[in-house]
C-alpha cells in the first residue's frame, strides 16, 4: 500500500478525511479491491477498539490513587521549605557570628573556617558527581 493510500485510509477510519479525500479514496477503492478490503479491515479493528473501551482501575487502587499523588506533591513542597529554611537560617547565623563584635576574633575565625571547609567539601562532592555523570559510562550500574 502506498503512503497516500495509507494516509487516506487512516483518515477515513478516524473520521478525519475531507469530502475531497473521501472521493479520492472511493475512486482508488473502486479501481483496486485490495484498498477496499484494507479499509474494511481497518474499520473493523477501530470498531473493536471503540467497543471494548478503556478499562477502569478497581475500586481499591482507585481509592488510594489520590493519596499517592497528594503525598508526592506534599513531600516535594516539604523539602522545598526545609531547604529554603536551612539556607536562610545558616546564612543569617553566619552573618550574626561574623559581625558580632562581642565574640572573640579567634572564635569568629574558627567559625568562618568551618563554613568555608563545609562549602569546599560540598562543592568538591558536587564537582565529582558532575564529572561522573558526564564521563563515567558505568555510572548507572548498581555497585
Amino acid at each position: 500500500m502506498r503512503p497516500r493510500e495509507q494516509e487516506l485510509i487512516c483518515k477515513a477510519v478516524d473520521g478525519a478525511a475531507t469530502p475531497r479525500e473521501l472521493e479520492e479514496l472511493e475512486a482508488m477503492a473502486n479501481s483496486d479491491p485490495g484498498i477496499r478490503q484494507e479499509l474494511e479491515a481497518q474499520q473493523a479493528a477501530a470498531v473493536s477498539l471503540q467497543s471494548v473501551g478503556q478499562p477502569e482501575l478497581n475500586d481499591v487502587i482507585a481509592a488510594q490513587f489520590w493519596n499517592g499523588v497528594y503525598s508526592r506533591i506534599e513531600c516535594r513542597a516539604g523539602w522545598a521549605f526545609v531547604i529554603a529554611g536551612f539556607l536562610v537560617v545558616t546564612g543569617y547565623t553566619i552573618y550574626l557570628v561574623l559581625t558580632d563584635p562581642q565574640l572573640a576574633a579567634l572564635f569568629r575565625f574558627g567559625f568562618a573556617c568551618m563554613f568555608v571547609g563545609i562549602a569546599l567539601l560540598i562543592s568538591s562532592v558536587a564537582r565529582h558527581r558532575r564529572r561522573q555523570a558526564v564521563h563515567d559510562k558505568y555510572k548507572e550500574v548498581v555497585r
Partner: protein
Amino acid sequence: MTPPDNNHESEILQRCVAGDMGAYESLVATYRDRAYYYALSMLHNHHDALDSCQEAFAKAFRALDSFDCNRRFLPWFMRILHNHCASVISRRRRRFEVSETEVPVDVFRATPDPSPGQGDTIEREGRSAAVHAALALLPGEHRQVLVLRHFDELTYAEIAETLGIPQGTVMSRLYNARKKLAALMKAAG
C-alpha cells in the same frame, strides 16, 4: 469517568492553578484510568505504571503555572506521562534492569454491565479480553498510538505532540498498528 467539557475543564484548571487541591483531585480522578492504562502499556509492570502515573500527576500539578488553562489538559498531561515513562525505560536499560512483566489479574474493574441490545456479559468480556490481549502483543509504538487515538480520543496533532513525532508518522503508525491488530485478532479467531 467522563472527561468534562472544555469550558468546565478550563474552570477546574483555573481552580487548580489557584491551589484548590479538591479541584485537582477531581481532575486526577477523571484521567487516572487513562493514565494508568497508557503507563502500563509502556512499562508492563503494575507498580512501575502506578508510580509513574502518580509522579506524572504530581509533576503536572507543579507545572500548572505554565499551562494555558484554555487548552485541553489531557494531551499536555500525556506528554508529561510519556516522557516520564520513557525515562523509566531508559533508566532500566542503562542499569541493565529486567523488569518483570507483572500485572495483577484484578487490577481493572470487571467490564461494566452491557447496555440493552449489546449482547451478554460473557460475550462482551470475551471480546474485550481478546482485544486487550491482541493490543498487548503489538510493538510499543503501535500500542501507544492506538491507546492515544481510540481510548484517549486525541487528535493526530495531539498524538504527534505527545509522542514528539510528525503527524505523518502518527498516521503511518496508526495504519500499521490497526493492520497488525486486525491480523492478530483474525489469527486468534
